[in-house]
Every structure is written in C-alpha cells, then in structure tokens.
C-alpha cells in the first residue's frame, strides 16, 4: 500500500469552490526525501493542491495523511500539523511589523516553546545558510524580493518541518533574483528535504526534482521523471503546454 510508504499521501481528493472543481480525484504519494515539481497552466489547481496539504484550504472528499496521520480539523491539532509543514508563498508574506530575525524566531518561540536565546541562535544560523545574515535587524520592506523570499524559507525551516511546500516561490521575483532563491532550494533538496514545488523553472526541475507532476483542469494528467517529461511528454496536454512555455 502506498499509504504506508508516503510521507504525504493524497487519496481520491476532490475539492470544489462553489461550482468550480479545483481538484479532481487527486492521488499522490510523496516519499520522505522526495522532491516533486508541480507544473501546469494557470488555474489548473497547483496552488490549491499545495494549500490543501497544510489545510489552508479544506477538501470536500478524499483523505490527506502526513506521516500516516490524517489531517485534523480546526484547532490545536491542526496548528501542530501546520508547524510540521513548511510553506513558502509567491508573495513571501513576511510579517511586516517584525524584523527579519523576529520573523524567523516567532514560530520557534511561540509555537515550539524555545527560549529566546536558543531561537535566535538557530535563526542566525538559518539566515546565514540562506545568505541574509547581514540583514537580521532590518524590516522586510527594506529587503529585495529575493532576500525576502530567502528569509521566508528560513522562517519555514526554523520550525524543522517534515515537508516544505513552495507555491511559485520565484514568480514574483525579478530575473536576477530568481537564481539566488533557486540555489537555496537546490541546497535544501540535496540535503534530503521532502519538497513539493510549484514552479515553471525547468532548470530547477531538472537539477533537483525526482518527479514532475503535470496538472490540468484540477487533475493530475501526467507524472514522470523530469528528463523524460521535458523531452518526451506522453500526453497531448503536456506537449501542448510545454510547447507554449518553451517558446518563451
């Protein structure tokens, strides 16, 4: 049974927004240490997929389990689950009223119960790892997009998550900043982090991904190893999509 193998397992998941079906019978099992890139046209349900995994969105049918545990409903148990699932947003969403250091220590102190000194020590190590150690005392608005996104990654890592979700982490960035963020993500992948990454960065998919999942109209249309997917996709939808994307 895949249910025992996967760290994150989605089983016959359906989700509607009113009349629109955003997820159609999604079955996906992500193994510990695996890096899965999710790709597909706008509106195909990629964000929704990410957001259901840490239950920022609820699902209507099916089950999602993390390490064998089904996602709890609202409340303390759900909060605890979210602490184990890191999320990086397209728009960074750093806490605007907190310094970079506070952004990274807030969760460990308030959610994990770490003392301030320990949380700050760990935060500075993480900020160093993502290359923004020099900006610890600044506020998010004083940083470039690429720097903010790296802080957001550090903030998520500070919780020691079991899996990290990235929803188009480089889509809001200027081209010259994309690489600095992708480099951090490649590093994470190499260190064995379990990752679900919504991105159209094929370079990243080729270097870091174990598997590419192609979505269209809320359904998973094709799953393949990156090289195979990009050079020889098996479905027409994927061929069509790649044709459009590669023209640019």
């Amino acid at each position, binding site marked *: 049974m895949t249910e025992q193998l996967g760290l994150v397992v989605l089983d016959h998941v359906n989700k509607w927004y009113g009349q629109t079906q955003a997820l159609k019978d999604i079955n996906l099992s992500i193994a510990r240490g695996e890096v899965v890139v999710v790709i597909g046209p706008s509106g195909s349900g990629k964000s929704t997929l990410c957001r259901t995994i840490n239950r920022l969105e609820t699902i209507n049918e099916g089950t999602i389990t993390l390490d064998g545990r089904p996602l709890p409903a609202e409340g303390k148990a759900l909060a605890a689950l979210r602490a184990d699932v890191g*999320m990086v*947003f397209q728009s960074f969403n*750093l806490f605007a009223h907190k310094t970079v250091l506070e952004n990274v220590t807030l969760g460990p102190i308030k*959610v994990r119960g770490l003392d301030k000194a320990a949380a700050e020590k760990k935060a500075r190590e993480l900020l160093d790892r993502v290359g923004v150690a020099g900006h610890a005392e600044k506020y998010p608005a004083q940083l470039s997009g690429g720097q903010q996104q790296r802080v957001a990654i550090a903030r998520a890592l500070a919780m020691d998550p079991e899996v990290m979700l990235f929803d188009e982490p480089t889509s809001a960035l200027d081209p010259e900043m994309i690489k600095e963020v992708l480099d951090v993500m490649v590093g994470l992948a190499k260190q064995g982090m379990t990752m679900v990454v919504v991105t159209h960065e094929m370079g990243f998919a080729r270097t870091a991904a174990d598997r590419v999942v192609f979505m269209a109209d809320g359904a998973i249309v094709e799953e393949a190893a990156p090289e195979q997917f990009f050079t020889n996709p098996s479905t027409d939808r994927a061929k069509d999509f790649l044709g459009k994307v590669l023209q640019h």
Partner: protein
Amino acid sequence: MDAVRDNWRDVLYAFGLTVEISVLAGVIALVLGFLLGALRVSPVPVGRAVAAVYVRLVRNTPLLLIMLITTFTLPVLGLRPDINLNDWFGIDSHNRMLNLNFFVLCATGALGLYTAAFVCEAVRSGINSIPIGQAEAARSIGMTFGQTLRLVVLPQAYRAVIPPLTSTMIAMTKNSSVAVGVGVTDATFQMRKLNNDNGDQILQIFVTFAIGYMILVFLISAVGSLLERRAAA
C-alpha cells in the same frame, strides 16, 4: 440672576455622571467589541454568525429603545429596580456625580452593548485591511487562531483601527445623553432642568452644555491622536 453660575455645582456633577457613564460604557464596548471582532473573523462558522447577527440586530435598533429595554425588562425578569452597585463600592446613594443606581447601570449597559457593535465593525475593518497572506503565513508556521490574531494581525491592524475607534468613542459620549430618556440625571438632564427653571436664559444654558460636551469630545480626540502617533512611531 445667572442660572449657570448659580448652579455650577449641579452642572459639574451632571457632567461627572456623563463622564462616569461614558467611561464604563466605553470599557464594556471595547472589551465586547474586540471579542465580537475576533469572533467575526474566526474559523468557527457559529462564532462568525453570532457576531454578525449581534451587529445586525444592535446596530439597527435605536439606542433609546435598547435603554428602555434594559430598564424595563430587567425588572420583569426579576431584577428589582432598587438593585444598585453603590453599596458594593461604598458610594453614597445621594452622590450625584458617582452613582451606580439601577437606572445608571441599565443606561450604561445599554450604551456599552450598543457601542460594542460599532467597535466590532471598526475592529473587523481594521483586520480586513491587513493582507490575508499575513494570517496565512502565521497559520502556516503553526500558530493557533488566537496567536495569529494577537501576534500578527492585531498589532498591524492597530493603526488602522484607532481613527474609527476614536470616532466611535466620541459618538458614544454624545450618545450618553440619550440616557435622560430613562431618568438618568446626566448633563443633558441637568440642562433641561435649568432650561425649565430659567426660560429667559435658554441660549446661555445650551451653549454652556454644548461647550461641556465639546471639552469631553476634545479629550477623547486628543487621546486618539496620541495613540495614533505612538502607533506610527
């Protein structure tokens, strides 16, 4: 004979009672209003519904009617009009400035309940002015709803909430004058009394009381701008 000058003590006492009612109602309104505001954005549908219905109901009911309801239905429900909190706090029941008799309590409670609906809406709009991504990021690192609100959303909403809350508190202070309708001897009551006794000086008396209310409102505005400036720093 100068009605205001001859009765300045009564005028002062009456304004004292207005201040007392406003302060107590303000505390009720702020505490209840923030709780309702939090309920309004809570993940629990029942909580959201309760807060929404409260605001709908209370905002669409005239304040005088709410005061009449508290004053006249509580006795029907068994709370006797001779109940008061004066003994509790060691207040002389003849003290006109500081008095917690049944009518003052009912009027104050009604004013607090009524104003809470407006506080709730100010808090809600302040919360809604903060991008949703802030709350989502907080939830994503495992914060509970309460932590998200307290640590991330409200500190940012604070600045946006102060100006409408100041207006709400000003409106509340002026609305306290409605309490005269249920027999509370506040500033407006005293104004009417003086007018009845001194028909020749109506204009002076009106102006005096208008200035009195203006001073109270000015004080609230001053506190509001002070908080606003501190929040901006």
